[in-house]
């Protein structure tokens, strides 16, 4: 499974890569903001996107709205410090498939990826 990490913090992307590596996900692309993220989607055609909210140049919500308008249906897990219920609703309405609040544990990340991929597979049947 190819996974695209869109987060302006290289530290967070490295932490996510370590967790994903332990879960045997090694095919990973990275982007530091929403604009770069859109370019990476076109290059790497990911199966899953982990998306931060607060980023320079293009934030996560705008990225999400933009790719859904383009008809890109790749599952997206928001991974953000924005923890309020209103923000979660806003992200789900914009097309997020799941939501992880930072700080996160390895177990939470693994569970959310598993949940998301199962939901997407069930919807495709």
């Amino acid at each position, binding site marked *: 499974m190819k996974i695209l990490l869109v987060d*302006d*913090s*290289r*530290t*967070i992307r*490295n*932490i996510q890569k*370590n967790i994903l590596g332990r879960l045997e996900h090694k095919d990973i692309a990275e982007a530091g903001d929403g604009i770069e993220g859109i370019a990476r989607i076109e290059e790497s055609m990911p199966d899953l996107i982990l998306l931060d909210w*607060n*980023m*320079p140049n293009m934030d996560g919500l705008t990225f999400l709205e933009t790719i859904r308008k383009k008809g890109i249906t790749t599952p997206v897990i928001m991974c*953000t*410090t*924005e*923890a*309020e219920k*209103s923000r979660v609703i806003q992200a789900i309405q914009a097309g997020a498939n799941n939501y992880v*609040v*930072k*700080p*996160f*544990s390895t177990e939470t990340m693994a569970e959310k990826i598993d949940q998301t991929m199962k939901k997407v597979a069930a919807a495709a049947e």
Partner: protein
Amino acid sequence: MDVRYINPFMKSIKNLFQTMLTTDVSFGKPFVPRPDDDSRPDVSGVIGFSGDASGAVVIAFGKETAVRAASQFAGTNLHLDHPDFADAIGELANMIAGGAKAEFEGLDVNISLPSVIVGERHEVTNSKVHPGLAIPCNTPLGNFRVHVSMKVEQAAAVGAGS
């Protein structure tokens, strides 16, 4: 500042350090920093607030504690000059601010992107506009302070039940 808004920061600091640095935090009594306070940090991560509340949160470390905390967080050795050191400190500040603001019931608060200051014994000044409190934080990685200066807008405070 209203001391009720300090607890969400303490809860957020504890959650961050337990979840991502696998270490516990205990707190000293929050206090108003005095102008003659000689305790000056070497590394600070700053996040601004806007919206229904304005102000900032600053996580302020001595350099040894900052290096240990950033390294523990990133899972790799991050010395002061490492290109990811400031990024890691900024992300710690970001998670503290984000976790706290989720607890401000009835307030719609936005947080800025993080800024990081690295400089030996710099001064964190208590704002006259947003007077604040310092929270002493004690961990096995070393001790540090989190300065919170926040003012809730009048109309928002009424809406939030103050």
